[in-house]
């Protein structure tokens, strides 16, 4: 297959990945609420129903727990389900099946069975959907051994990581940021995978390392670009995978820059930034730190409806610039 670059939106890239997987493997199916003729709440599944029919693109009743459980059972029995939860917030309704069943089945049964389940979820704020449709809950799931948790940040990653998730024998939770669905970027044609254990240095620099996830990668890049005007040379790492976390890439970067900042949309307290920061303090990179580690994350409140409040609840570019400048210049 050709690997020529062309531009696709994040949503279409995901759809392309699902289509490729379903073409290649008859055991792959997509299940979720409104994924059929409606094309998915965020139009990700689109025309897949026309291409693969209602037996492989299956609209469920509004029953997240039952649907998740069905996919767990199917996954244990030779199928490769893609379960779309309409909003990642609704994963709370399916927690038993994800956390108690899918994540633990292999362990509890002494390695007798794998659960090759992929759960896809639109996550994050910015759409005015308020507190129950805007959360970033990836840290919840990243706390559970047995799950893998990924957050693609570009159309390229969205396609390649979804295909990798479908190749993976274990349950993978894919958090897709709603505001990224329309983002356009280069996506190679044909089948390729992005490994599920590697973070990516998306911008090299020497003054400061910013580890960002999902949409924050773009905000961090924008901040880094602005700060070149002030002579600062900032390294940006796309975390890509919250579990299993690629510690080495972050450690190497911190050893180089001596300064670390973590940026994520999820609430700051007990978030993935806390894990990264603790991990660095436990690692050999600690002795290379020349300033305290800084975390930027969501404020300590549910996501509000009012657009100004909503924006203020998650890190934005000016705040990242300010924090990065202070950290790189030694004011912090």
């Amino acid at each position, binding site marked *: 297959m050709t690997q020529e670059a062309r531009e696709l939106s994040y949503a279409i890239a995901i759809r392309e990945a699902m289509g490729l997987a379903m073409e290649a493997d008859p055991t792959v199916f997509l299940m979720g609420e409104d994924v059929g003729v409606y094309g998915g709440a965020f139009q990700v599944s689109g025309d897949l129903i026309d291409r693969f029919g209602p037996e492989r693109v299956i609209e469920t009743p509004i029953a997240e727990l039952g649907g998740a459980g069905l996919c767990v059972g199917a996954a244990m029995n030779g199928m490769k389900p893609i379960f779309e939860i309409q909003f990642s917030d609704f994963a709370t309704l399916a927690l038993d099946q994800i956390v108690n069943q899918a994540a633990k089945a292999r362990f509890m049964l002494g390695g007798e069975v794998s659960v090759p389940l992929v759960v896809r979820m639109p996550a994050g704020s910015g759409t005015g959907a308020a507190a129950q449709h805007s959360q970033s809950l990836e840290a919840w799931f990243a706390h559970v051994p047995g799950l893998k948790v990924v957050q693609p940040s570009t159309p390229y990653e969205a396609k390649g990581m979804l295909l990798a998730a479908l190749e993976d024998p274990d349950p993978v939770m894919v958090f897709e940021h709603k505001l990224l669905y329309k983002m356009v970027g280069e996506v190679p044609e044909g089948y390729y995978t992005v490994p599920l254990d590697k973070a990516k240095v998306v911008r090299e620099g020497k003054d400061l390392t910013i580890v960002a996830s999902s949409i924050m990668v773009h905000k961090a890049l924008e901040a880094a670009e602005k700060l070149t005007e002030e002579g600062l040379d900032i390294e940006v790492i796309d975390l890509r995978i919250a579990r299993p976390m690629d510690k080495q890439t972050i450690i190497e970067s911190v050893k180089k820059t001596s300064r670390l900042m973590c940026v994520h949309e999820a609430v700051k307290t007990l978030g993935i930034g806390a894990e990264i920061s603790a991990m660095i303090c436990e690692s050999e990179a600690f002795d290379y730190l020349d300033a*305290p580690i800084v975390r930027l994350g969501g404020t300590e409140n549910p996501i509000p409806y009012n657009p100004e409040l909503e924006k203020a609840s998650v890190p934005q570019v000016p705040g990242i610039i300010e924090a990065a400048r202070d950290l790189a210049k030694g004011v912090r």
Partner: protein
Amino acid sequence: MATEVILPKVDMDMETGKITQWFVKDGDTVSVGDVIFEIETDKAAMEVDSPASGIIRDIIGKEGEDTPIGVPVAWIFAEGEDYISQVGGASSASSSSDAAVPEVAEEAVPQSADNPVLDEPSGSVSVKGVRATPLARRMAREHGVDLASVTGSGPKGRIRKRDVLAALEAKPAAVTAEPASAEAAPVAPAARDMAAVDARTRSLFEPDSFEEVAHDNMRRTIAERLQESKQTVPHFYVSVEVELDALLALRKQMNAESDAFKISVNDMMIKAWALALRDVPDANVSWTQTHTLKHKHVDVGVAVSIPGGLITPIVRSAETKSLSVISAEMKDLAARAKERKLKPAEYNGGTTAISNMGMMGVSSFAAIVNPPHSTILAVAAAQERIVPKNGEASIVTMMTVTLSVDHRTVDGALCAEVLNAFKRYVERPMLMVI
């Protein structure tokens, strides 16, 4: 074969149980399901049923005693079965429960082998309390830099990589000859050197030839502050001789006017010095890293000798105060200083200081500037001298004053100017009171 009656595990975390009551006695006939005894755990009491039908014998489980779970407490013999005492016998049950004990015990042993013992970070003694980044600490450790001697440029004085680099370039003296290896440097260079110096000091004297007096806080404070001043403030010294006769005459005249006050020479020195600094305000200053603070009032610290040390209470805005007010204030401050009852606000700060050893007969001396002051005036004793005046030898009362100056803020010419202003007030004391 007789059926064992065991003390059953009835709770998840139960290891022993206590039989509170037997409901049957040796030789009783029991049926399956009959309640035969009651046990108590830390949570509740529970009845235990008979596991078999027959005659219960050899009841060895005692009421009120803690018994391990799984241990036989009695045996039930089926009807017609020959009685063979089971007590102390090698029944399969007791051996199997014995076998289980070490298994459980093993599990309870915490696994610590994988936890590496954390090395005590080298250099921790001297760098404790020093604010430094991990990188700066590591570099200091590797290059043998004493962080206590490095000035931090970061927020809150935090020492960073660049500060250690600067220390390495600028002050090779702060660096020990060999980099401290991680294992061999439990005590950092500075602390180690201090201890060595102390030991050497003691070794210079016969063991019983001195008494050791531990430093109190005042001694420590004096030592630290003056050491810091001498090490960081570039001092220079300028002396001038002043005639005192006019001042002494005025003093006598004033004190004769009223019993309400008794003006001392020292009070007049304070006033004269305050007025001099008022007239030459560029000398009434404090040094900071970025700015010189020019003070609008002259707050004169006056060194007061007290048992075990000295303290410097402050006469605030002395240039505005009359001699009688200054006199009354000094009496009160000195008295309370000797009782160590001054409030910190009464001795912290000040814009200059006076140290007067005139009453102790010294002919001249130089004092150490006490930051944030830029000056300190050392006043020696008044002495009658034969001085040529208008071609004749006349007897004049003279006094030497020496001004110690922080050269960062006050230069030589300015120093001369302010000393001359002082001399003028002392020699023409009426200027002080008009």
